[in-house]
């Protein structure tokens, strides 16, 4: 399966990365990692990339790493549709102090706009 993981540096996006790489190690999924600019975090793209690389190296998985500039949700959906990905994988949101699940703005846009299947990692 041809997977596109979007990662903007939030905690839930890091968990999604780890789970997607674990799964790719088992299944041989064709994984592409798209580094996004998430306005809700101040993670630098270079730091995210080194985190991505160390998770990939740790599981001996190879993936192509891309950087997407501009609005993260729309850029991700555009890439997935243009290059015929089978699935977009994203962090499934943070939980509030109360334990309520709160969807991030990128996941919200992607869920409502993507014609490609979407997996939210919880």
């Amino acid at each position, binding site marked *: 399966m041809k997977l596109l993981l979007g990662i903007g540096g939030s905690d839930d996006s890091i968990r999604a990365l780890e789970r997607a790489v674990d799964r790719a190690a088992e299944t041989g999924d064709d994984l592409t990692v798209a580094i996004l600019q998430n306005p809700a975090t101040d993670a630098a793209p270079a730091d995210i990339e080194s985190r991505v690389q160390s998770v990939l190296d740790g599981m001996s998985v190879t993936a192509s790493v891309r950087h997407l500039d501009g609005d993260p949700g729309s850029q991700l959906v555009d890439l997935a549709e243009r290059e015929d990905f089978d699935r977009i994988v994203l962090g499934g949101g943070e939980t*509030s102090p109360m334990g309520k699940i709160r969807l991030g703005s990128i996941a919200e846009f992607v869920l409502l706009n993507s014609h490609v299947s979407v997996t939210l990692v919880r």
Partner: protein
Amino acid sequence: MTDDRAYPDEPAGPFPTPPTTVDDREGRPITIRRYDSETDRTALAAMYDAFDPADRAQGIPPTGEKRIADWLDSITGEETVNAVAVHGDDVVGHATLVPDSDETAELAIFVLQAYQGAGIGTHLVETLLGAGEAAGVERVWLTVERWNKPAISLYEKVGFEPSDTESFEHEMAIRLH
């Protein structure tokens, strides 16, 4: 978490402080009081065990004994403010303030299905806010599904105002002090 919510300028209230007793619209005597973890935990867990999962909101309350227990541990700890609505020996409603900073807290409320629509929720929220005010909570926020008009009306009646209308869930906030 940074607190960049738009809170109302003026404090709401005054609110009643627990304990209070009211007859609900079905004529059932309901006592609203602070939650006591020593004596109320079993009855509170029983309420959530009986709770209709169709009324879950954003993943809470969870289902299953273990998930309910873990969740109750996390929302009834130190620094939280909890109130229960009690009918006889049964807990039929629960409202909680869970702090996310020294001055602000998130609110949630659940009323058992057979007791909904009887005015208990309004009393429970007001009394919880009275308890929160007394405990020094300055500002309170919550999220609610946009389609849940009865809940939004209840929160508006109590004094909550919309604080973030752009996110997926409807966010509302109130100032206590």
